[in-house]
C-alpha cells in the first residue's frame, strides 16, 4: 500500500490556522476531524484514523500539537504509511519544533525530509516572526513588498521598511495589515499613505504617528490620537517618553544644523544617536567604543545606587551579553529604527528656520534656542506627569501644543 499524500503545516500559528480554515471551508462531503496530540494518545489517533465515518466516504484528520518525541515522529510516519485510502491526514506543527531556529533539531529535519519524499505531499511553511537584526530587515522588506504585490499594489523598499517598523515583525500581523490596507490603498503605496493608515504597534510607531501630526500643526488631531492610544491600552508613560524623545531629537537636529552639518549628515548622526548619554554620542569614538562606554555608564549607575542609594545589588539586571558584544544587538538597541524619523526632524528644523530667517537677528542661534525652550518645557511637563498623575491629559495636550509651536 503506497502512503497517502499528507500536508504538513509549520510556522506562524495564525497563518497556518487561516490556511487550514480555508481548506476546511472548501472541502465538501468529507468528514473533518481535529485531534490534538497533546490530548490524544497514539492509540486514540490510530483508532480515529482507522474508523472512517458513518455516512461519509472520505474523511480528513488534522493532527496538531505534535510533541517533540522520537517515538511520536516514528508513529506519524507509520500512520501515514498505513492509513486507509479514504483518510487524508493534515499535520500541523503548532508547537513550532520544525521552525525553532534557536534549537534546530536534526530529527525534525529528517521528519520533514521523509514527508517530502511521499509523492503528492505538501509542506506549507509560514515561517516564524522575523528577527530584529538588520539582515532580517531586508527579508521583512521583501516580504512586505511581495505581500503588497500579491494584492495588486506596489510599494517601495523604503515605505515597506516604514510599514514593517509600524506594524512589527510578526508575519501574521504584517499580512493582515497589508490585506486591510489594500482595500483602500492606491496602486502605488507611499510613505504618507502608510503613516496615515497603518495601525501602529510599537513605541516607534506611535512616535511616527504623533510626530507627523505635530509637525504639521494638526494639534487637535494629535491630542485626539493621544486619547485614542490610551483607549487602546497604551500607558501614558509610554506616550510621555515618545514626546520627550521627539523634543530631544529636534533639539539634537537643530544643534547639528547649527554646527553646519549637511542634511544627510544630520540624519545619519541622529540615526546613530539613539538613547546614548550625550557624552557618548557627541564624542568622536567608534561605535564599538561608544558601546563599551554606554555599558560602563550603566554599570556605574548600578554601583552608585547599590553603594550610596542602599539598593540591593540583586535588584539590577545584567546587560545582555549580546547587547555588549553583538553589532546587531548594539544597532537595534541604540539606533533609531528608521531614517524617516531623522529626516522628519531635519525637515522640521528647516521649517522653523524658514519662519525665522530674515525676521530675527542671528536667526540660526534663535532657532536653536527655540528648540531648547521646547525641550525644557516638554521635560517640565514630563516631571509634572511623573510626580502628579492627576493632570495627565492636560499635560500631554500641553506637550503637543509646545512641540508643534502653538504654545511657548
Amino acid at each position, binding site marked *: 500500500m503506497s502512503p497517502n499524500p499528507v500536508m504538513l503545516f509549520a510556522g506562524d500559528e495564525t497563518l497556518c490556522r487561516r490556511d487550514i480554515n480555508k481548506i476546511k471551508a472548501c472541502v465538501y462531503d468529507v*468528514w473533518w*476531524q481535529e485531534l490534538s496530540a497533546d490530548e490524544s*494518545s*497514539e*492509540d*486514540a489517533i*490510530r*483508532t480515529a484514523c*482507522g*474508523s*472512517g*465515518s*458513518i*455516512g*461519509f466516504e472520505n474523511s480528513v484528520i488534522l493532527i496538531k500539537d505534535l510533541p517533540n518525541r522520537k*517515538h511520536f515522529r516514528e*508513529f506519524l510516519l*507509520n500512520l501515514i504509511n*498505513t492509513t*486507509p485510502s479514504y483518510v487524508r491526514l493534515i499535520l500541523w506543527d503548532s508547537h513550532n519544533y520544525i521552525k525553532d531556529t534557536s534549537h534546530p533539531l536534526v530529527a525534525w529535519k529528517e521528519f520533514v525530509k521523509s514527508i517530502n519524499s511521499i509523492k503528492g505531499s505538501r509542506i506549507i511553511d509560514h515561517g516564524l516572526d522575523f528577527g530584529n537584526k538588520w539582515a532580517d530587515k531586508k527579508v521583512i522588506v521583501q516580504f512586505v513588498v511581495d505581500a503588497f504585490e500579491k494584492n495588486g499594489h506596489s510599494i517601495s523598499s523604503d515605505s515597506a521598511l516604514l510599514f514593517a517598523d509600524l506594524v512589527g515583525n510578526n508575519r501574521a500581523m504584517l499580512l493582515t495589515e497589508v490585506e486591510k490596507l489594500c482595500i483602500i490603498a492606491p496602486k502605488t503605496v507611499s510613505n504618507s499613505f502608510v503613516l496615515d493608515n497603518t495601525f501602529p504597534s510599537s513605541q516607534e510607531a506611535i512616535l511616527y504617528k504623533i510626530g507627523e501630526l505635530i509637525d504639521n500643526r494638526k494639534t487637535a488631531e494629535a491630542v485626539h490620537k493621544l486619547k485614542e492610544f490610551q483607549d487602546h491600552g497604551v500607558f501614558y508613560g509610554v506616550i510621555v517618553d515618545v514626546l520627550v524623545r521627539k523634543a530631544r531629537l529636534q533639539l539634537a537636529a537643530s544643534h547639528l544644523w547649527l554646527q553646519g552639518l549637511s542634511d544627510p549628515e544630520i540624519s545619519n548622526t541622529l540615526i546613530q544617536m539613539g538613547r546614548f548619554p550625550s557624552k557618548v554620542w557627541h564624542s568622536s569614538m567608534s561605535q564599538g567604543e561608544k558601546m563599551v562606554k554606554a555599558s560602563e555608564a550603566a554599570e556605574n549607575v548600578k554601583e552608585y545606587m547599590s553603594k550610596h542609594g542602599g539598593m540591593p545589588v540583586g535588584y539590577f539586571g545584567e546587560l545582555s551579553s549580546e547587547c555588549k558584544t553583538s553589532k546587531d544587538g548594539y544597532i537595534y538597541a541604540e539606533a533609531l529604527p528608521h531614517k524617516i524619523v531623522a529626516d522628519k526632524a531635519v525637515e522640521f528644523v528647516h521649517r522653523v528656520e524658514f519662519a525665522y530667517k530674515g525676521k530675527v537677528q542671528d536667526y540660526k542661534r534663535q532657532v536653536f534656542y527655540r528648540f531648547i525652550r521646547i525641550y525644557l518645557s516638554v521635560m517640565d511637563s514630563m516631571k509634572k506627569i511623573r510626580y502628579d498623575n492627576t493632570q495627565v491629559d492636560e499635560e500631554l495636550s500641553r506637550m503637543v501644543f509646545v512641540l508643534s509651536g502653538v504654545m511657548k
Partner: protein
Amino acid sequence: MKIVIDQDRFIEAIKRGAAAALSDEAQADSSNVSRLIQSVKLTAESSAITVESTTDLMASRANVKVSSGIIVKEEGVIAVPAKEFFEWLDKQKGSCIGIELKKLDTPEVIRDADIQEQGGNTHGIRKIGNVALLAKGAVAAKWQLPCYDPEQMPSVDFSEKPDASFTISAKELANGLSHTEIATRDKDLEHVLDSIIFETTDDVVYMAATDTVRCALFSPSTIKNVNAKLFPAPNDEQAAELAGRKIMVPCSLLKTISKLIGQEGDVTFHYVEGKDRVFVSNSKSEYRVVTTNEQGMAKVPSITRLLATDFKKICSINKNNLSTILSIISSVNPESAQFTFANGKVMARAKSERAGLDPSDAATEIDGLSESFRAVYNIKHLFAAIKIATSDVLELSIPKRNALLLRVIDPSDSNFFYYSRAVQNPIYEEEA
C-alpha cells in the same frame, strides 16, 4: 405588581419558566445586555402568574393559575435577576412569599462600561424599581432585588407556534434521550454531532444520534399526531423528494427540558420551518429551542440507509462477561481491540502503540455463533452499549456484505439499535 403565593407552587413555576435565564449559556453571558438575559420576567394577572425567560438558544415559559393560596393584589410585570431570585426562593421552604414592586419615580439607566450612546438616544438597561421579597413561615425573611424594565427583555411569542409536528410521552422522551445521548459528542459548535435527530422512515419516527463513527437509534412507541407534512409517509407523492427530513435539537437543551417536564403526560413538538427553532410544550410549561440549521442537517446522512442495511446475527454474548473482558484489555489499549469470534468463543486482544506494553488477551464463551470472523472494534463504543442495555445478554450482528459495522441489540428493548464502525488498525494486521 403585588402578589402573595405559596413557595412550593411558585418554585416549580420559576424552575421551568426561568430555565433559559438559569442555563449555563445565560449565566456565562458577558455582553452588555447580560443583566436582561440573566433575568426572569414575571407577569401577574388576575387569572394567572406567568414566568418567562429567553436566550439565543432557548426560551421558557410557565404558568401558575390563580387559585387558593395565590393572591394577586395588584397586576403588573417585573424582571428580576433569575439566579438570585431562584436561590432565595428555594431556601424559603414551606413559606408564604410576598412580592411587591416598588417603582422609582424616574427609571435609572445603568450604564455599563461598554454601552454606548448613539444618535443621542440612551442605550442602557433601565432599572425601574426594586422588588421587595418577603417570606413568612417557620423562618421570616426579607430581601430586595433590582427590577429592570420588562419591556427591554427579549421575548418570544409562544402563541405563534405552528401546528404540532408530533407528540411523544414525556417518559418515552426521557427514555429515548438516555438511549441516544450515548452516541453524541459533548460539544459541537454547529450542533450536528451534539444533537438528537428526530427522523421518520416507514411510518416510524426514530430518535437518533451519531458522532459519525457510531449511531444510536431509538423508536419511541408512543409517538402520535405525526404531521405528515413534516414527516411524509412513504406513499406520499413528495415522499421521495422529502425523504430524510428531520429535526435536530441539541441534546443538552432537550435533556434540560425533559428533566423539567418530568415523566408525566405528553410533550408536543412544533417545528418552525425556515427559522431553525422548535417549540416544545406540555400542559404546564412551554419552551422554544434552537435546532440544527439546514446545512448542519445535510451533514448527517439519513438513518434510512442504516435501517435498510441487511444484518446477520453473529452471536449472543453475556453483557457482564463482555464488560469484564473489555475492562481487562482496555488497560493496554482503551481505544480499540481485535475480536476473534470462533469455536464458541470471542477472544479479545489489545495491542498498544505505547512502547514496552505486551498485548493483553481475554476470552469468553458466546452462544449461537453463526460464522467465524475477526474485526477490530472501538472499546469505548462497546462500553457505551453495555451501559445502556438492561438485559443480561446482547445480540451482535454485522452487515451481510462486510464487517464494517457492528450492530448491538438489547433483546429486552426492541426499540433500541446501536451501531459502531469497525476500525482499520494495522497493528493488528499481523494477527490475521
